[in-house]
Each structure stands twice: as structure tokens, then as C-alpha cells.
């Protein structure tokens, strides 16, 4: 396509610069929203999947009717019975709860059965202080929550009305969720949450991964109160994650629809205003196809420019969210997600084409002589 066509398309956008600017800005905002939401869904799924897939966990077990891991209750005696299954090579358990700390409404408290393995698996890095010892009432605090609550090594704070807990170390992890949590030994957390002899989830590693299906069946048939799933299924099975994921998907689709309508409105107006010009182009020999191409180029320029700005702008916005809203920040990615960029590219393409093609098809279906008489 000739340089003149691009030039013409750019100048056309410039002639209604205010309208083009607002359309461009709307697309940018929509794509920014899409990028943030999709990043949230993808990031959280990716974080959980990475933990499970890379750390050789075959099966995850939680209470059958638990909607979230926090509401999952598995009793000790059930665990003992479960561990009698021959194929199980290793198991780890975790208790997850929420507690109000200071002004912060709700903080995740995690009790782990084997801190060493847990920290290795999740790439826990003690940035200050030491790891958990054998003393009671010791806690490790994630860097984000430490920053928010202004906690330092040796600080004491109350998690229960009667006992003080001592911060022995600050840690960071690539799993954002953990950076906003407090970690302690399983026994301590059971006491703290007043859930003695209970755990939330069990992670099983089998002697032979090929027997996963058999063990899954055995657990689900013989343990009426438990629900065992393949580890890869966990991200789809987690209630809140599922909600975040579906919500982000629904909003993503809505954003595309909204963007299409915003641009569609712009182009319907633009084409209507340029009826006479379309007539002139026909008169000098332009075909309908080339005239439609002009409108497509204009729409694609707007959608891609808006999309690029929105995508780039989403990162400082996510940074600010991470800095000031730690509750949400656990869902946000730490780095650029290329898959989102690919989605944004295709979204811009779809938005551009859909928004211009219908007004262009309609607008170029005119009686040339009548269009030239139009004032």
C-alpha cells in the first residue's frame, strides 16, 4: 500500500484530533485494564502451577467441601490413615488461616510441617535475621507485610490476645502471595488459629508418578471427606483463584466489546462526515476496497497506538498498586508477561478491524452522484 494512503489515514486522524485523542485514550485505558486483569489471572495461575509442577508434587488433597484452602479442614487421624497408602513417597502439609494484625484487616498465616523443604520449594530467601528455630512463638514475616506493618527483627507483636510472637526473620519469595504472609511452624499456627490437630492441605509426592490416577481414585473413593486432585488441576480448583481468573476473563471480553463500540462510534461518525469525500475518491477511480482499506488503516493505527500506550502504562500502574495496595499485590506479576503482549496485539487487531469494517462497508455503499451533491 502506498505511502500516500498512510499519509492520508494519519491526516484524517489529525483532522478530528480531539475525537481521535479521546478514542485513542479510551482504547489505552481499556487495554490497560485488560493487561492488569489478564496479568492478575495469568500470574496467580502461573505462580501456583510453578510451585506444584516444578517441585514434583503429584497430588494435592484438601477437604471435600472446602471452597478455599482457608476453609479446608483435614484432621490428623485422617492424615495418618491416608499415609498408609503404599505409593506415597513423601508428604507435606500446610495450615492456612487469616488473622487481623493491627490495622490490617486480614493477613495470611501459614503453618508448615517441614520448613526446610517448604522454603526450598518456594525459593524462600531470608533477607534479614534467621530461619525458624525450635522455639515456640517464632515467626518469619514476608517483606511486603513487614514493610506495611513496620516490623523488624526482634519485634514482638500479638497475634493472639495472650501471647507475643517474635519476628526472627524477614523473607522474600518469587511467589508474591508469600511476601504478604506470615510463616511459622505448623504446631504454632495450629495453636494460634485455634485449630489443633488440623491442617488445610496435603501435598503428596508418589514413588511412581505414573500411578497418580490410581492413587487419586483410591483417595477419592475411600476418603469421603477428602478431595484429591492432580497438582496441575489446583490452580483451576482454588475458589478465589478461579473467581479472579474468570472475573479477569469476563472483564477482558467486556473490554474488547467496549473498545470495539468506542471505535465503532468514532468511525461511524467519521465516515458519515466524509460521504462527499468518499464520492470524490470514487470519482477519481478509487475502488471500494481501497477506500475500506483507508478506514481500516485509520482504525488499526488508533487501536494499536492506544493498545501500546495502555500496555506500557499498565506497568507503572501495577507498580503503584503493588506499592500501596498489598492485598491486591499478591495477584500481580513481578515482571512483564509476554503472553499478555501477544493477547494485546491480537485484541488491537480485532478491535481495529471490527470497529472499522462495518461503518466502512456501509459508508462506501453509496450513490456516488448523490454523495457528490451532499453538502
Amino acid at each position: 500500500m502506498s505511502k500516500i494512503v498512510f499519509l492520508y489515514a494519519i491526516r484524517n486522524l489529525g483532522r478530528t484530533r480531539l475525537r481521535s485523542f479521546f478514542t485513542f485514550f479510551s482504547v489505552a485505558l481499556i487495554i490497560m485494564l485488560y493487561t492488569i486483569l489478564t496479568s492478575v489471572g495469568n500470574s496467580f495461575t502461573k505462580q501456583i502451577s510453578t510451585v506444584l509442577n516444578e517441585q514434583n508434587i503429584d497430588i494435592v488433597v484438601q477437604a471435600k467441601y472446602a471452597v478455599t484452602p482457608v476453609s479446608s479442614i483435614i484432621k490428623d487421624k485422617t492424615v495418618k490413615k491416608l499415609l498408609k497408602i503404599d505409593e506415597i513417597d513423601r508428604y507435606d502439609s500446610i495450615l492456612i488461616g487469616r488473622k487481623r494484625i493491627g490495622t490490617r484487616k486480614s493477613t495470611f498465616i501459614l503453618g508448615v510441617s517441614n520448613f526446610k523443604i517448604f522454603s526450598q520449594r518456594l525459593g524462600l530467601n531470608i533477607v534479614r535475621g534467621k530461619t525458624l528455630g525450635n522455639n515456640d512463638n517464632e515467626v518469619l514475616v514476608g517483606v511486603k507485610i513487614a514493610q506495611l506493618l513496620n516490623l523488624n527483627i526482634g519485634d514482638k507483636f500479638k497475634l493472639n490476645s495472650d501471647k507475643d510472637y517474635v519476628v526472627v526473620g524477614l523473607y522474600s519469595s518469587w511467589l508474591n502471595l508469600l511476601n504478604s504472609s506470615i510463616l511459622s511452624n505448623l504446631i504454632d499456627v495450629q495453636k494460634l488459629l485455634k485449630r489443633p490437630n488440623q491442617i488445610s492441605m496435603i501435598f503428596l509426592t508418589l514413588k511412581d508418578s505414573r500411578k497418580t490416577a490410581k492413587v487419586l481414585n483410591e483417595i477419592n473413593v475411600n476418603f469421603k471427606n477428602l478431595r484429591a486432585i492432580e497438582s496441575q488441576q489446583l490452580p483451576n480448583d482454588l475458589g478465589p483463584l478461579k473467581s479472579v481468573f474468570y472475573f479477569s476473563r469476563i472483564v477482558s471480553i467486556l473490554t474488547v466489546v467496549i473498545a470495539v463500540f468506542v471505535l465503532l462510534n468514532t468511525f461511524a461518525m467519521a465516515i458519515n462526515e466524509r460521504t462527499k469525500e468518499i464520492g470524490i475518491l470514487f470519482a477519481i477511480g478509487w475502488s471500494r476496497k481501497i477506500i475500506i482499506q483507508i478506514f481500516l488503516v485509520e482504525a488499526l493505527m488508533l487501536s494499536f497506538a492506544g493498545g501500546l500506550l495502555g500496555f506500557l502504562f499498565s506497568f507503572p500502574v501495577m507498580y503503584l498498586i503493588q506499592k500501596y495496595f498489598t492485598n491486591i499485590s499478591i495477584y500481580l506479576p513481578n515482571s512483564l508477561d509476554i503472553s499478555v503482549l501477544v493477547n494485546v496485539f491480537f485484541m488491537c487487531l480485532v478491535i481495529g478491524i471490527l470497529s472499522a469494517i462495518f461503518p466502512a462497508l456501509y459508508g462506501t455503499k453509496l450513490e456516488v452522484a448523490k454523495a457528490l451533491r451532499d453538502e
Partner: protein
Amino acid sequence: MNKTSIITIKGVSKSYDNGLIQALTDINLSLEKGKIYALMGPSGCGKSTLLNIIGTLDTIDSGSILYDNISLDKVGSLDKFRKYFLGFIFQFHHLISVLTLKENIELALFLDKTITLSQCEEKALALLKEMGLEHRMNSYVSEISGGERQRGAIARALANSPALLLADEPTGSVDSKNTKRILDILKEYVKLKQRTILIATHDPYVVAIADVCIMMEDGKIVSINEEKINNERLF
């Protein structure tokens, strides 16, 4: 039919609003190569409709139009036909306001696949020079005078060296000085390239340069005067 005819119109009729307005009735006309035709008549007599029909911008109800002995019904792509064989000049320049004068001409030239981008630019510059507009090549429509706009529009119409140039009141919105200049350009074009021009007009200056004067009234051709009207003294 004359051997040198470029366009032959046979029994063409056209009506609007389901026959309520009869714009053209049984038009028979033959336009020869290398001649200037002045199409005259009162407003609303059907001059513009006839131009639009010959220019394939409007359809006919009945009759037929032959271009070089080939019926326009048999022309596959009317866009290509307009691109390679026809040029339009309107009363109001109809240049694209967001483009410069040079770009407006390139807009018509770029469709020609046989010339390169640089040739396209060269040709646009040459046309502007011919029209005495080379100093205005980078000016937008809003920055130039009415006469310059109309000459720019003529340059665009001549860009593809059309065999038939259709002009609807081309001097209707310019002063006498520019009228003379425009008509000189058109005369030169016909003389040098042996092309045909059909000009709908009320302007006696246009009639003065015309080889044939066609009079219309109420959608019908009432006379075709092939005698050169001696109006040269007007200039």
C-alpha cells in the same frame, strides 16, 4: 456512428424518485476525439445528470452508452474505467482538505500500478508546474486561492491523462483571469493529446473555446451546434 467517436449515447433516459422526476429523456449523443463540447442549458435541465451518467457515477434507466464501441454494461470494473479513461473537474474543486496540493494529485496517480512512487511524485510536480502551482505544492487547500484550488483540481483530473474529461461548471467559482488560465490549459490539453472534453457550463468564455455546443432543456437535447462560435474577442 462516427469512427472517431469516443462515447456514443443511445436513447438514454434517467428518472429519480420512482419516475416522479424525469431528469433525462431519450438522449442521443456522440462525442468525438480531440474536441471540446460545451453542454449548456438552464439550471435543472439535466446537464450534471448527463455528466454523471457518462462518468459512470450514476446509472441509467434505459438506453445504452458505448465507450470506443464497447458497451459500458460490459466493462467489468467501473473503478478502473474511471481511473484510466475519465477525469472529473467539479465546480467546487473537491480537493481533499487534509492533503497538500501535491498529495492530492498523488492520490489519483498512486492507483496506476505501472509507475513507481518516485515517478508518481515527479509526475505530480510536473503537473503542478504546468498549472503554475509549483510554488504551492506543499500548501493545503485552505492556504491557497480559489483559482489555485481549481487549477489544482484540474491537475488531479489530468493526472492519468484521461481520454475523456468531464467538467461541471469548472469556471463557475473563479474570476475571469483564472477562467482564461483554466480554459487555456484545457485547450492545450485537447490540442496536444487529442483528448475530448465535455463541459457543462453557463459561461460564454467556455462556449468560445468549444468546438461543439450542445443545448439542453427539460432533460432533452434540443440542439447540437457544430459551428465554431466566434467569441474569441471575449479574450
